[in-house]
């Protein structure tokens, strides 16, 4: 069974971020990242992640080009122009949400820890 909805929701972004961290951890000498099993997984996941990023970039360029093809002054052009204008903020939002969500899980963990007794 699959938990959540697979795709490029927050879950998708989360796994892409984890995949991008693998080579960084490997390069910085993380012990786990240098184990043979982890290296093997990294080598299978990293090309997929780079391909996913390339497809995302192509999609962005495609939408940009589509907006340029549509006759200026039409309602459709206005719609696309509006979306294009807010694109940087929209692109940032999932990263912020993901960071907040992970932060909340850490806070819940800390809140559940029993406070240390003095002495």
């Amino acid at each position, binding site marked *: 069974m699959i938990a959540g*909805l*697979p795709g490029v*929701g*927050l879950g998708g972004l989360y796994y892409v971020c984890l995949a991008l961290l693998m080579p960084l951890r490997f390069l910085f000498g993380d012990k786990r990242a240098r184990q043979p099993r982890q290296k093997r997984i990294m080598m299978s996941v990293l090309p997929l992640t780079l391909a996913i990023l390339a497809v995302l970039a192509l999609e962005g360029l495609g939408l940009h080009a589509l907006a340029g093809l549509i006759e200026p002054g039409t309602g459709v052009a206005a719609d696309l122009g509006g979306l294009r204008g807010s694109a940087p903020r929209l692109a940032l939002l999932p990263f912020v949400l993901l960071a907040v969500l992970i932060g909340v899980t850490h806070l819940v963990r800390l809140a559940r820890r029993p406070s240390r007794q003095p002495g």
Partner: protein
Amino acid sequence: MTMVAAPPLSTFPAERTEVGPTSRADRLTIIVPAYNEAASIRDTVESLLGQTTRPAEVIVIDDCSTDDTAAIAREAGATVIQPPQNTGSKAGAQNFALTQVTTEYVMAIDADTVLAPDAVELIMAAFDEPGVAVACGFVLPRHVETIWERGRYVEYLFAFTYFKRIQDWHDKALIASGCFSVYRSDVLMPLGGWPTRTMAEDMDLTWTLHEQGRGVRFVPEALSYPIEPRDYNFMSKQLRRWSHGFVQNVRQHWRGIVEVSYLRSAVAVGLWDASVASILFLVAMPLLALFVSPWFLLGYLIDLPVVAVPVLAAAIPRGETMKALASLPSFAVLRLVNSLFFLRALWSELVLGRSLTVYEKGH
């Protein structure tokens, strides 16, 4: 119905390697819970007995079927046992058989699932690593014809090729799939076997093992082929069970999983996508399309090219490129329906306090 994903059953039994007394498969009992599985049980038992490394025993639990499941399983070479009355769930049937297991390892496999000929040999190798308590394999629908089977085909190719491998890198596979997993008996038995308190016993057990610091491994080379729901009636039963099972497990385990690194964040994003993303899909996007711009409808399809990357990476070596491409739209449909079931499960379990307790078989 044509068999497209699995190797033809005529290839079973596979060429058998000489197995020494130390082979792990010799120390493996396979248990197959079955209720009215006359149509599929023979294929399942034959694929188990035709493995490159043969298990010590294959036990079919005939959960008081009203068809010929028991006779067919016995004829195919399995040991058949029957509880005094229907156990009411897959976990109940599995636990009934667990009392008779004396081997070091025990495998659970669904009665509608066949394995690739070398699946047992490959999955057992995971236990070479100390500390591994459970190993699970790659799952692919055996038949890929209807919109529901096609949606599931893409979902599995995507999740098992990408998400699950990343989880495995962190030693935190989210679920050891109930349809094909192997456990160390000395870990499983003290836990009382498979829990029956939720509708997703595989998730429940996997999270318990993570909380105990046990090793959970994913073996992508070990392939299994279950029969997935063919129509909406069966699919809705399965989605209902899985969505309720997920919410029930979050409620049951949240205190434990916040202590487990990566698992806590993986479950949190899963819950987010099941709730907030479902609301976006079913409520926000139609409203935005209606009142702001119809271009928001692109939101339903915009990630399909991204989903296609891992899907094609898995499908091309299997010679299934066109099948994967043709199945992508079905994935979008299944995901939309799935989001509705998740929202209903959240509402029912958390708001109304009505927990799903009746196990409805949906393949």
